[in-house]
């Protein structure tokens, strides 16, 4: 199954990146090691960033996540670009809900939004599996 292989490839890449990010997180002195909420936030950000990095720049949603996390310097530029949003949905209800959920969904056409959602769902599923496995095996190891 193509999707299966795609999933395991994504899982491996995500796992590598996520574990490295967590390692970095642990090594950081300071707030992140003590404040549990900040740790949680940092962990979650690491998870999303690792997933997007594992996917690469091929999907629109991963590009959106990567630009959010990595290039904070360019935030000003991206904000300006956001003002010229060509596709502004005015109260479509479900559609704009979906756009709000999928990263980068606000600037897409409906068709591409749907395909991005499909890919995003698959990657989320892979991510959850990996994180669950890590959690379970780590707890079993300990």
């Amino acid at each position, binding site marked *: 199954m193509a999707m299966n292989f795609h999933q395991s490839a994504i899982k491996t890449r995500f796992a590598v990146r996520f574990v490295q990010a967590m390692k970095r997180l642990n090594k950081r002195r300071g707030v992140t090691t003590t404040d549990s909420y900040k740790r949680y936030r940092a962990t979650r950000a690491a998870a999303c960033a690792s997933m997007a990095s594992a996917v690469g720049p091929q999907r629109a949603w991963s590009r959106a996540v990567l630009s959010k996390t990595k290039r904070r310097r360019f935030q000003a530029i991206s904000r300006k670009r956001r003002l010229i949003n060509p596709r502004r949905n005015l109260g479509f209800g479900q559609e704009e809900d*979906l756009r709000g959920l999928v990263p980068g969904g606000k600037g897409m056409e409906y068709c591409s939004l749907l395909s991005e959602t499909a890919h995003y769902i698959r990657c989320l599923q892979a991510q*959850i599996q990996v994180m669950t496995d890590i959690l379970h095996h780590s707890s079993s190891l300990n």
Partner: protein
Amino acid sequence: MGSEGREGRVFQHRGDGGGDGRAMNSGIGGTNSASDKVSGVTMCSESMFYGSNWDPMVSLGQSGDFGNSNIVPQSQFANNPLMLENQTMCGSLAQFPSDSGLVDLVPRIPGFESGSFSEMVTSFGHNSDSPNHEKGVSQDHCPNSDSGMLGVSPYGKRKREVQQRASPKSGEEEQRKNPSGDTSREDDDMKQKFEKGIARGKQAGKQAKDDQSGAEPSKDDYIHVRAKRGQATNSHSLAERVRREKISERMRLLQELVPGCNKITGKAMMLDEIINYVQSLQQQVEFLSMKLATVNPELNMDIDRILSKDILHLRGGNTTPLGVTPGLSPSFPFPPYPQGAFNSTPGTGPPFHSLPQHIWNAELQGLLQMGFDPDPSGSMGPNGSSKMEL
């Protein structure tokens, strides 16, 4: 079936069509000779009209879908969007042979269910070989250079013929009907419907193909769309329809992804389900990251070492865990994971995961449980490629 003079002429001009017509007549079988003549006549006239469109209809007509041969020509008529009313068409086209006695043999068959039509339509709705296709969904205006469909146009060039059959067709129909002049009422109906249907005929002309089998639609750069019965045919609505089909196709994909959505039909409810599912997945990620954040410090080193060793094993030459090529390809070039060795998987993952977990689980378990030993099956032996491609 060359008994009719007109038929004979047709067969001269359209060798293929005539041959197929004969084949079809013989294929129908089981009918009396008179009805055979009728079907032969109507099929000949159809072959004049519909060009290669007719041929796939022939093959479809021979299937069990149609009860008798009389229905077949009508179905072909009806499938061509020019023919809006089966009954009138069949009645009027049956007048083409000078023998008007055959008219009685063609019954007025009530319209078919549109399902069969759309089936037939979509079966070759994507034919796109003709170089006359200008745009996938826009109408083209057929030049009226082809004056006569019957005796004049060279039937070797089927593409031109099909494209232009729409406009001269109405004129010819009316010409041919006038001599027989039996049912003027049907003529009027036909005139109206031809005018309505000309636009559709132009659309239909684009999908005509030389392909006699009419079995497989060939993909082109464009997506060719055929206007179904009762649908508007201007370019905007056709483009809209293409877009809607794309959207519904993606919704089907999503339906497969989201568990428990098989019974739900309707875009609104599907969207609701999808939104809920995405939200729940995101919440799960947050929950897991919270848990990992608390568990993390003790855990991390081991996993990292294990994974990096795994990467080293798999990729053969990579010395750093960062040696992962960023490209992503859906192929699976790795040697097979040691699935056979480990068959027990803990109940990991939330209950609504529908994806098989054995590949990842087996690998991770193997790595964690066996420590750093390579897989006994040797599947993770030296990998030929030095770079991992994903």
